[in-house]
């Protein structure tokens, strides 16, 4: 289980100097979404981080951090223990588990692929089974 204490130690969040560089480059913050430096401070303070699903996982925050905190990884880790997973991602998770891919050519796209001279891929049973074994081990289910 990922705790705040684990994140602080593993990602070196105590190095944060509160410079706000992360926020200055964040397209989400600029448009009213998550504020990265406040999110880091919230983890340090042991309080819930607001708006984690409004993070774009664009990596811009991590790229400009002068003390090399991987803010993106912090967001990903917080999301992985969130109980409020958006429906969009629940659906793609189900699609991945059932079909091995989040997008599969269907309907018109199958004929477009043929028209373009591209093969229509079929996921083999063995591939899907391997994927399911890995995902079940990680807590996924039907």
């Amino acid at each position, binding site marked *: 289980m990922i705790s705040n204490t684990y994140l602080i130690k593993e990602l070196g969040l105590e190095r944060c100097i509160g410079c706000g560089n992360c926020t200055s*480059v*964040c*397209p*989400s913050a*600029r*448009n*009213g*979404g998550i504020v990265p430096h406040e999110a880091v401070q919230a983890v340090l303070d042991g309080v819930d981080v607001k708006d984690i*699903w*409004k*993070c*774009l*996982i*664009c*990596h*811009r925050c*991590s*790229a400009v951090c002068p003390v090399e905190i991987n803010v993106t990884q912090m967001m*990903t*880790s917080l*999301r*992985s223990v*969130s109980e409020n*997973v*958006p*429906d*969009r*991602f629940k659906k*793609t*998770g189900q699609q*991945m588990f059932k079909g*091995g*891919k*989040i*997008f*599969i*050519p*269907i309907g018109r*796209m199958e004929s*477009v*692929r043929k028209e*373009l*001279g*591209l093969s229509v*891929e079929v*996921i*083999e049973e*063995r*591939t*899907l*089974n*391997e*994927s399911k*074994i*890995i*995902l079940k*081990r*990680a*807590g*996924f289910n039907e």
Partner: protein
Amino acid sequence: MSDLVLYPGCVIPARLPFIESAVRFIIDKLNIRMDDMQDTTCCMEPVGLRSLSEDGWFGVASRLHSIADGKDIVTLCDGCSVSLSECSQRLKDQKGKDEAKDVLEKIDRQVAVSEVKGFIEILYENLESIKKNVVKKQDLKLAVFPGCHCEAVCSKKGLSANSMMFEIVKATGAMPKYPRANLCCGGSVSMIDDTLSKAILGESVNSFKATGADGVVTSCPFCFMQFDMVARYRTYHIAEIVAMAMGWEIDITKFHRGQ
């Protein structure tokens, strides 16, 4: 046999196959030796799926590395680039190797680690060959927007995605234009906070227009869909521009929605 394997991912083959067609045309035209990766699944992309489970992501991505068996993986999607290159970093540590071994043993596969290259890197490495193969100069002014994930992966390697794309666009005869920095397509928050998503998307498109460009060129399929399908702005994938310059004759207006 080649030292490169192609991993097309999910979204391009399923939703944007014309981009795959352009990529395969370029590979063929430039005589780049590259085999298709077999038995692939999704990479557990970094925005949503990886957020659901770090262990799930690492297991699935490690399986893809096992299949590549040490050959360089060429990705067409920048989400795949992030997913597989971060897995690659982790597989280089003993702890990561041990964790991967535990998972892969369950499916009778071995741990292997590959380097990961986005298709833009392949284009940049073949810049001189592209120039020699241009038969139809692209008379376009294009705002250059590699995409956040492309920039992130390249910058970790000490490469500038913007500069590489600038040179590739120039090689096709088109005129590259720089929009403002730190933009995003907003796709990651689409269907989560649509107001926020549209604001981020609008900010980018306005910046592209402000450069005086005819359209935008990107290397990311998710950015492509946001700009082309949602914003209805004239959008090209970098592979399309290069392929068109080299004589690819697919009518992309049948597939694009942006004006």
